[in-house]
């Protein structure tokens, strides 16, 4: 659809995982699928944060933000060596 995809880091409230899921990663996948059929997980984070990274269009990112348990959806950022 031409909309520019970008990488987003998604924070999830781990304690809000529905009981129907027995793994957080499956819950993350399901939440992501609700916002975008085609999006794939780039990373699942377990220690540094609870969440994942994925490629979405801005509209999909907005839609994901409305999913239960989603705390924030933040765009990719550049860093540099000092």
């Amino acid at each position: 659809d031409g909309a520019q995809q970008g990488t987003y880091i998604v924070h999830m409230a781990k304690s809000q995982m529905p009981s129907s899921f027995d793994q957080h990663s499956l819950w993350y996948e399901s939440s992501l699928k609700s916002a975008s059929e085609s999006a794939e997980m780039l990373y699942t984070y377990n220690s540094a944060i609870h969440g994942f990274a994925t490629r979405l269009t801005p509209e999909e990112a907005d839609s994901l933000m409305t999913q239960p348990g989603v705390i924030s959806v933040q765009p990719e950022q550049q860093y540099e060596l000092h």
Partner: protein
Amino acid sequence: TTRTPLFLGLDVHNAGLFPETGAASDVVIGVLDSGVWPESKSFSDEGYGPVPTTWKGECEAGTNFTASHCNRKLIGARFFVRGYEGEYGLVDESKESRSPRDDDGHGTHTASTAAGSVVEGANLLGFANGTARGIAYRARVAVYKVCWKKDCYISDILAGIDKAIADNVNILSISLGSINKATDYTDHITIGAFAAMERGIFVSCSAGNFGPSPFSLRNEAPWITTVGAGTIDRDFPALALLGNGENYTGASLFKGEALPAKLLPFVHARKASNNATYGKYCYPGTLIPERVKGKIVMCEEGGNDNVEKGEVVKAAGGLGMIIANRPNYGEELQAYAFLLPAANVGLKAGDIIRQYVITDPNPTASIVIQGTAVNVQPSPVLAAFSSRGPNSITPNILKPDLIAPGVNILAAWTGALGPSGLASDTRRVEFNIISGTSMSCPHVSGLAALLKSVHPEWSPAAIRSALMTTAYSTYKDGQPLLDIATVKPSTPFGHGAGHVSPAMAISPGLIYDLTTEDYIDFLCALKYNQSQIIKVSRGDYTCDPSKTYSVADLNYPSFAVNVDKSDTYKYTRTVTNVGGAGSYSVKVISETTEVKISVEPAVLTFKEVNEKKSYEVTFTVNSSKPPRFSSFRPSGFNSFGSIEWSDGKHVVASPVAISWT
């Protein structure tokens, strides 16, 4: 590194300070950077015992990298590229290694600075020759490649932190920062560092190279140790000779055919270019060969790298180059591996040389490379580029925390790039000399590993406290450390608590400890809402609405007081006795009498180890206007001082920074 261990007092006569076997080689330093060159001698595992049983990391294979490239020194190597490939598409493996292999040199340099094995006869083209070794040369190293040829992306960096925590590193060394300044503590290095701290992992980060401007820091969260850069007692002098008989000392790492033993025609780039605006910077394509051929060229620093300026001058037929420091870098002399006889000079010399080359009817010059000079004084001086406070997110938390060697540091290098880093530089070296807070950070990471090996029970906050309260901010003659940007005394906004002093940090006497809950209380004091707190801490912490939280109560080993009105500002601190029984008396030093600093109680008596005692500091500010003479600095009116506790054997010093905004 060569020379730095001696400069830090870690040389042989202090060898007994840190055990060379056992505990010291069970500490694992995780380095988030551009990867590693595993063939470097700095990662030899000769004499190492088996990998610590607690280790869960791996050695990931990829372009030109297999699991056999790891060993009992380099015990982990991973790479994180999906964010980068999301932006640029799949890595072109003919151009960069889709593996932990370091194509840049930066990661090899920082990893070997922190924990490189001993290598005799290390040098760069003969410069800085000596026995190279990492600060914690017995520690193990695990590298997490998160930076790539073109960029570093936070989704990859966060994945690196995530994995390093799961792999069980003890120390995390992060010599990188966000391009844009963070406005709160929810940037992802900060969040990742919080998770690491919770697991007892010490996190040291570079403070950034955006100095000497104030408010120029990166990585300024209180659970991160923010490291600025200073010089050591070694220079690489080069003489700039002028036709009027004058000569000026600059710096250079040029190795090659010397200039002819005579003065050569000398021209300023501005007069050798047809680009009125940018010609003076010696950018590619701006020099006119007819005006440069056979001459020495003066270029102005800024815009492109100094080594690239040299490449431009050489390509235009120039025989040598003199670069004048950019104005705000003052007398700083970083040394560069130029491709032609060249030197960069400080501000004063630059002004004089520029005046000469522009006004003299027949200017001539030459350059003499002088090699390596040691026992240089005064040292350390604060590096001009080292980012400065105040802390722009929380002015009442003093940052940077401390400084460590970060100028002209020799350490291991990649085999994929020459020492200048220029694509045209076909030389290959085992060690290189570069500068930045990227270099000072791994020094502190290494020191933290040494302390961890001696005090495995110490928390990350305890380690940082020991490094800060024993740091020095004056020379042996009592004069304050100099800031090379101004050649005037540095301040705690430049050097934090001061320059690290490892031999003292082992037994600091008292420490300022902090727990996860203390940091959560700090976030509550900043009025973080529930979702922000969950984001930073992943935990289900909540702020107690009935409780009064204050930033001033964060048990930090330094004091920053941001004065917005005449008032009294109270700070509470709790110190833990890690020395023997003793009675500590307080001494308050302040530049200004307009702020009264009182400490209650004035004596703290300890009977046993791990006993805790609290004290309260009251800053009474008579007027909201800054004191008459308080020094106006770009960051506003500031006044400094210190609060020191001593039992006659230990001095537990904390800097005080008072600022009127």
